[in-house]
């Protein structure tokens, strides 16, 4: 018996018991199915080993480029479709989907939305083909949720150059990205602006953050900017103040909420396979009431989360989505996810603490999702402010 073998056939029996993918157009369904097959057969099998070793699966980059993922996501106007793609990616592996989200949702989107025509011409072709990889450097060692008010990294304009100084922390893809979008406070007008920093600039150094217990394949970096000189046109002209990040952070929050759904699908997949295969007292674990009740609570949370995201996608597509709603999606879906994986992990007993079981990885990764893109508490207080009119942060 291989309790959680990464290759399976019964995809029809997924956690999407509400048939949400039926809402898609036929073409989208076919493409989604194709991508799911890719994620399950190409990404999922290699993810475990890289996660254990804390290494990034560079060998996947050509395949990811080849399957045309960046293009699919940037061309569709249907946010439900793109959300389900992100769900399926995370269902196969959260680390790799996080790498991709940083590259696509944060860096590439920033160029598309906030870059000059020239910048788009320069960067986009390689980004879309994944010949170059981007990162996004906002948080700092001393400031996470309060970064907008207390950012310490500075940019000073001198003639045709900018000079950047400061430090950034937890920057995903930071160790190897070709380009890092660094946010810094312009000392002239005190506004926060975005700058494209190439990895080989003098004064730009990165140090890998080791010893992570979650999304271990993601290469997070501590970054130091020590008098980094940049040409003037490395500034993204769409970034005249911190509000420029709003659209990006709105979308990335939604993307992370989709990750939280994907994590739950993954946990349900692994849990069901295990409890159907593993026998105790000569019957499958799944024949126990307690086990079924646990799996059903996982399904409840998953269905609630997916149901919410269908509505979020609708509002995103119609252009009415607000940060309040995105924050509610992020806090609520990650709250459910955390419970779901906590229910699923012990179903595998001690086997559930080995990476090979997959469940240990899923369980551990949930903690990153719960805390990044705004902690649970911070997103809750954004919604709380909207509901009450009082700000408490």
């Amino acid at each position: 018996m291989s309790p959680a073998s990464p290759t399976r056939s019964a995809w029809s029996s997924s956690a999407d018991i509400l048939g949400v993918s039926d809402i898609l157009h036929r073409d989208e369904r076919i493409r989604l199915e194709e991508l799911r097959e890719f994620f399950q057969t190409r990404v999922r099998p290699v993810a475990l080993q890289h996660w254990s070793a804390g290494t990034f699966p560079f060998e996947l980059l050509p395949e990811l480029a080849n399957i045309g993922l960046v293009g699919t996501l940037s061309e569709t106007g249907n946010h439900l479709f793109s959300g389900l793609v992100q769900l399926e990616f995370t269902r196969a592996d959260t680390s790799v989907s996080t790498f991709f989200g940083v590259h696509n949702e944060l860096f590439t989107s920033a160029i598309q939305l906030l870059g000059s025509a020239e910048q788009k011409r320069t960067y986009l072709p390689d980004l879309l083909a994944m010949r170059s990889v981007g990162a996004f450097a906002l948080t700092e060692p001393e400031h996470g949720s309060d970064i907008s008010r207390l950012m310490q990294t500075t940019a000073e304009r001198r003639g045709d150059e900018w000079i950047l100084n400061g430090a950034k922390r937890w920057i995903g893809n930071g160790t190897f990205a070709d380009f890092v979008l660094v946010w810094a406070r312009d000392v002239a007008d005190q506004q926060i602006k975005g700058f494209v920093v190439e990895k080989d600039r003098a004064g730009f150094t990165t140090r890998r953050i080791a010893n992570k217990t979650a999304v271990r394949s993601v290469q997070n970096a501590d970054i130091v900017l020590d008098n980094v000189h940049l040409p003037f046109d490395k500034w993204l002209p769409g970034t005249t103040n911190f509000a420029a990040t709003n659209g990006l952070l709105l979308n990335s929050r939604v993307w992370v909420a989709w990750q939280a759904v994907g994590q739950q699908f993954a946990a349900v997949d692994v849990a069901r396979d295990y409890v159907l295969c593993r026998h105790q007292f000569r019957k499958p674990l799944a024949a126990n009431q307690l086990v079924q009740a646990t799996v059903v609570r996982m399904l409840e949370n998953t269905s609630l989360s997916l149901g919410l995201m269908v509505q979020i996608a609708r509002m995103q597509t119609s252009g009415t989505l607000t940060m309040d709603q995105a924050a509610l999606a992020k806090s609520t879906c990650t709250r459910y996810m955390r419970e779901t994986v906590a229910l699923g992990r012990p179903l595998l007993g001690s086997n559930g603490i080995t990476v090979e079981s997959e469940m240990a990885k899923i369980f551990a990764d949930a903690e990153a999702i719960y805390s990044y893109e705004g902690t649970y508490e911070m997103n809750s207080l954004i919604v709380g402010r909207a509901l009450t009119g009082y700000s408490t942060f």
Partner: protein
Amino acid sequence: MIVDTVRSRGEVPYPDADLLSVTELLSGDERTRLASLRQFFQDEVRPVATELWNRAAFPFELLPRLAALDLVGRNGRRDSALLTGLAVMEFARADTSLCSFFLIHSELFTEAIRTLGSDAHRRELLPALTDLTNVGAFALTEPDHGSDVSREMETTAERVGDEWILRGSKRWIGNASLADYILVWARDTGDSQVKGFLVEHGRAGLSTSVILNKIALRIVQNADVVLDDVHIPFDNWLPGTTSFRDTDGLLKNSRTWVAWQAVGQQFAAIDIARSYALERKQFGKPLAARQIVQEQLVRMVGNATTSLSLMIQLARLQEEDALRMEHAALAKATCSARMRETVAIGRAMLGGNGISTDFEMAKVFADAEAIYSYEGSYEINALIVGRAFTGLSAFD
């Protein structure tokens, strides 16, 4: 003191706590209809409900105005599944007891006549039922059998010539004491199958006694029903009922409507909690300006919003005629579990005032327990889902 939700509406964003812009899913006409239903529930039902609840009294005087809403569906008119669900939600948001009364009458009894009755049944009964001049009840559970009543039903129907003779007892039957008709489920002694029979109010041998001292749904008149050699004509058998399986369609949908009630209950709790938190001051500032309280409100809204999102999918499945019992069971279990957490948070937010129905929340909190336990307990619904998802039955 009913907290003035309307007043606070103008003062905060998302006045109805609708973070989904849910009416965007409706047509223009449906939006208008939902708004007028909502207004009726908030203006005509909610203000009288608490006092009725305290007295455990039923408001017969409300029935004509309720009938005017045409919710039961005159002449075959039907609202869409989503609009119906949202209407149930808004009804429960105003008062869950009256909403339950209505669902028993409309979705269990009248729907049974519609889908399982004979043409004659439909012709004779539907007009008065849709006008609420007649009221129906639905008698399935028995004193010793709730979740296992399908297997263990003790009430019998014996065919003798042109009559049926019914014997047995039923428990927890909502509306039974005031209903013109009770749909009694009994085991036909001829073929041992469970079938449905119409028993009119006043039949010899039929007696009902109202269950007192409930802490939940106190406006609903639940009764113990005794059938002591009740003779009814052969035609009182609903010809669409030849075995217990024929209840499936009814129970599947009614479970779905109960899930919508669980959503409505959550929004009721949110309405009350938010208004209270904005008005009640502690150490000189409103409760609503405190982190702990905000996190609690957001948890309530998160639960309610995701429950509503789930029900939007259920409505889609209903419209596509793709709804299965496990979907309805999932919805009922899930939404009622969320509801229980939501109202518990809300109840506590009102402190001591939360145990007095004068502040409404105590009623919402108590009613949640009935929702959680009827139409299949949480556990039974969970095991229905579990069976569908694992292929293994773990009921016994």
